[in-house]
């Protein structure tokens, strides 16, 4: 069994998924995890929470798949698909392999909030069960790169 550390992609405040204003994430329908309410001080570069291949890359969301097949979804804000990529600058392409902590997307959480949407960033262990996750970081401040939780694989 391996232990996969899943890092915070953005600086901000860790919150429970249940507090995310979207039922799909709040009910952990695609998997358990945590969310980060990002700082609102201007553009933020979201980094890769794990090492792996970018199997899905949207401007506002991306999925990394690790070598052993774990999928981690990072979703930059809620309902941000409606922004159609406006305000999101990609540093990588779908299919690229990245290291944990590499820059993926630069965006502005404050601008998302101004548009009337929540900029909260759910970080999801896709198709995991809650008991697979250990050491969930308690609510409170976190920097990009801090460990959010450890996924037992």
């Amino acid at each position: 069994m391996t232990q996969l550390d899943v890092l915070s992609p953005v600086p901000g405040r860790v919150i429970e998924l249940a507090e995310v204003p979207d039922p799909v994430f709040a009910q952990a329908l695609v998997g358990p995890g945590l969310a980060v309410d990002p700082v609102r001080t201007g553009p933020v570069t979201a980094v890769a929470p794990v090492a792996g291949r970018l199997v899905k890359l949207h401007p506002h969301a991306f999925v990394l798949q690790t070598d052993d097949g774990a999928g981690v979804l990072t979703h930059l804000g809620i309902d941000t698909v409606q922004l159609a990529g406006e305000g999101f600058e990609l540093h990588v392409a779908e299919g690229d392999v990245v290291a944990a902590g590499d820059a993926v997307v630069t965006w502005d959480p404050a601008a998302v909030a101004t548009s009337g949407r929540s900029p909260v960033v759910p970080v999801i262990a896709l198709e995991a069960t809650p008991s697979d996750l250990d050491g969930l970081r308690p609510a409170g401040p976190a920097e990009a790169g801090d460990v959010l939780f450890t996924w037992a694989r």
Partner: protein
Amino acid sequence: MDKAEQILAALGGADNIVEIEPCATRLRTEVHDSSKVDEKALKAAGAFGVISSGQVVQVVVGPEADTIATDIEDLM
């Protein structure tokens, strides 16, 4: 039937779809008649969950949503 065909049928068929749009985790669908949507059949087709609000039905299928949406559009 493949997954896209099952989901389309469970949404009441092509005639019931106003719009279907993929997000990172889900298909956002607007239907004409939400009573024609079969949640059990959607889950049997592999949906992790279904969130309905009036005529908007969100079918949670995970990160394959964009592929499934393309397949459904090909069927319509």
